């Protein structure tokens, strides 16, 4: 072997089988991760329910029928087949309301989680990348935001401004960006210290070019994971607000609202309270399982 060849070994490394690409690793892990798969299926199923609600629901969820008030489910005594799960105190079909409730929850969840993402990630990247005074200001802002009793403030603001779906989405979103901020800031600071970012600076890239080409692709995974968790948090927040009467207002079907409406008669008709609760639980646990699974699958060392 010539000396020249020794400084440029080309094919002796070809004998080694090629290790998988990052994407292959993730897909391989994903296929085996039960939580991820279960959560994903639940989310897809509920998203389908929301999408095809008009086809699935037997009745208009807001249509009142005083003649058919407080009917028990079809299998109990006095129930009617056309109202499979019974009706509520205004004669509205419970099953239809349950199905349409998926739309409300998912809309609020996605909307609020997205607003939180925009605020939190922007602040986090700025604080983590530029540091200094900006970082101090953002950290202070974070502490102040954490100190605010979220639920209380949300209740007060929604009530005062006027309860509607958009107000709920906006306020829940604006009060839930701290998780995004903390994680994005820490990740950006860590990335900032890595040499490939310095290399980007050294080749003459502007701050924006470095941020978008080098930093953001490495943040995307973590941000998506947080989004799935915030989805669940936003959905629970909306249901709490609606339950207390300061969120979604009737006749719009919100699961939290349905639980509040059913509270009066919950001892005789427990399903009025149990069913929407199970729906909420299912949706949120689907999101959380999916998020947990996503985190396990994309983290560098595999399962946490």
């Amino acid at each position, binding site marked *: 072997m010539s000396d020249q060849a020794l400084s440029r070994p080309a094919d002796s490394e070809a004998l080694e089988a090629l290790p998988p690409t*990052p994407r292959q690793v993730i897909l391989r892990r994903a296929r085996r991760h039960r939580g991820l798969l279960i959560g994903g299926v639940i989310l897809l199923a509920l998203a389908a329910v929301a999408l095809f609600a008009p086809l699935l629901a037997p009745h208009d969820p807001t249509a009142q029928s005083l003649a058919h008030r407080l009917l028990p489910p079809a299998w109990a005594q006095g129930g009617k087949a056309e109202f499979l799960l019974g009706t509520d105190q205004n004669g509205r079909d419970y099953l239809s309301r349950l199905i349409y409730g998926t739309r409300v929850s998912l809309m609020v969840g996605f909307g609020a989680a997205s607003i939180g993402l925009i605020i939190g990630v922007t602040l986090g990247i700025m604080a983590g990348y530029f540091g200094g005074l900006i970082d101090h200001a953002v950290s202070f802002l974070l502490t102040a935001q954490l100190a605010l009793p979220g639920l209380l403030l949300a209740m007060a603001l929604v009530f005062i401004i006027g309860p509607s779906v958009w107000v709920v989405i906006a306020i829940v979103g604006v009060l839930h960006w701290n998780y995004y901020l903390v994680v994005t800031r820490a990740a950006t600071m860590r990335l900032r210290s890595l040499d490939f970012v310095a290399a980007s600076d050294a080749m003459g890239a502007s701050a924006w070019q470095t941020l978008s080409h080098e930093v953001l692709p490495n943040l995307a995974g973590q941000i998506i994971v947080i989004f799935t968790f915030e989805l669940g948090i936003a959905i629970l927040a909306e249901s709490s607000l609606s339950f207390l009467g300061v969120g979604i207002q009737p006749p719009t079907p919100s699961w939290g609202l349905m639980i509040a409406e059913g509270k009066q008669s919950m001892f005789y008709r427990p399903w009025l309270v149990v069913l929407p609760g199970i729906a909420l639980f299912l949706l949120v646990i689907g999101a959380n399982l999916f998020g947990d699974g996503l985190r396990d699958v994309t983290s560098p060392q595999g399962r946490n």
Partner: protein
Amino acid sequence: MGSDILLSVRDLDISLDTPSGVLKAVRATSFDLRRGESLGIVGESGSGKSMTAFALMRLLPRIARATSTRLDLAGERLDAIGDAEFFDRIAGQRISMIFQEPMTSLNPVYTVGRQITEASVRSGRLGRVAARRRAVELLERVGLPEPSQTLSKYPHQFSGGQRQRLMIAMALMNEPELIIADEPTTALDVTIQAQIMTLLADLRREFGMAMILISHDLGVIAESVENVMVMYAGEVVEQGPATAVLSAPRHPYTRGLLAAAPGMEGPPHRLGAIAGVVPTLFGDPRLCVFASRCPHAGPICRSERPPQQTAGPRHHYSCVLRPAEIGGLPDARAGEPLPPPPRSEREIFRANRVSREYHRRKGLFGAVQTILAVDSVDLVVKRGETFALVGESGSGKTTLARILTGLDTPTAGEVLLDGRPLADVGRRERAKLIQPIFQDPYGSLNPRRTVAEIIERPLVISGTGGRAERQKAVRETMDLVGLPQRVLHNYPSQMSGGQRQRVAIARALVTRPAALVCDEPTSALDVSVQAQILNLLVDLQQELQLTYFLITHDLAVVHQTASRIAVMRGGRIVETGPAREVLAAPKEEYTRLLLSSVPRLRNPASRAAETGR
């Protein structure tokens, strides 16, 4: 002679349960250690040297299992006693261990005194008062000032070198018969390293302890141990007295390793490099593990286990070639001498009284501290030469390098780039002249981008040419640095450390800059890979007429590559001059100290005469 054998190991196997199968990290390792003797285990990454040490102390991770046919300590069968007894009587009592990272190896929430004395007190060996007294004695012995006050301090109040001394004192509390040191000085500066190794040698003699020293640094091994065991890919390929193995190695891997290590003696020559990478082998392979990289491999090497050969008293190696045949092979070390890089008188860098101050304030009420990282530095780098900036941690060399690359601005003084003030040179223009190479091949490439994207990026930023032109430039540069075309769409995680560093070099060269600022470009690489990269850098300099500004703490690398040197300490330049002159006849005290601290692979006869061993 059998009665003074302290540790006897036969057929040590360590298996790891990985998702891809059972990986044998260590295979059939056997050795003997006499009382008071020292054994060095040397190898690169993946050799299994650290695993062997951890197995002796039962500190292996959960997924690992160790088996052996014999594991005796002074005749007692260690593999027969349960964990409870082992940790009660043996660990910390008869065998002690010191680790690689002194910064994280001590518990931050307890005082030093408590940590040093707790093992003795718990085992009932010493009462509390007696333990403290002994601790103070040992702290003094290891060279820590104010020992009694040290006891009530916390680890974070000490430097890395001091913490390692603390660890040594702690290991000696119970007068162990054997001390295992896993890369004890790798994380420390070279001057501190010399002090710690001397300390260990003195203490060993005083207490009559045996020592197992694990290291990847051949120089450290050469200067500190009597016997050597060379490991590769989980197996022992050669072992014997250090003088024999290091001056007349037999196994082709040992020969290759010694040829690849840059030395401090004689004129620099082309380093012998070992082609390829360490293989990952599952189960028990029925071949010679080095066959894939051995320049003398034959078909039998790939189908059968190599036999054990004897080269001298207690000197064995596993190879199909007999000692006489090895003796007939050409000298692995005789690479061609390197011509000095061509120099012009044109300056590319000039620093005039450059300083960099940092202001730090601890909290809202603390006093403002001013740190002078770079203090009034003057230097000149001419086109075409290799200028080495040498210093230990805290010397300011990295800060100075960042200033020259334009990643930081000086608080005083001026930097001229190609005759013009650096402040006036635009970002893009500066990028065309200088490019950096970093130390850590893992951190210097974006894990989410392919090799093609990484190498192309500088061209995209500088707005050069169209897509087709850029891709052509990328392919040409890959050829230049020895990267095969098939890795074009690989991600960094699919490549070895050496390959990644080549990608980093390609990225730096794709715009054909005039100078490369290299910050410890090979410090994170194995010796054999380092040799490949150093040879590559030398070749590239000739082909592209590059200027190198090299920052390093490794004087052997400096000796190998530099034409001029500046020695830096505490932010100031202590000595400058042509490399040969400064290294042969240093004028300053500190330079002399640095040079004398570097552990060397010297002529064994002269070394034996020096140390009386």
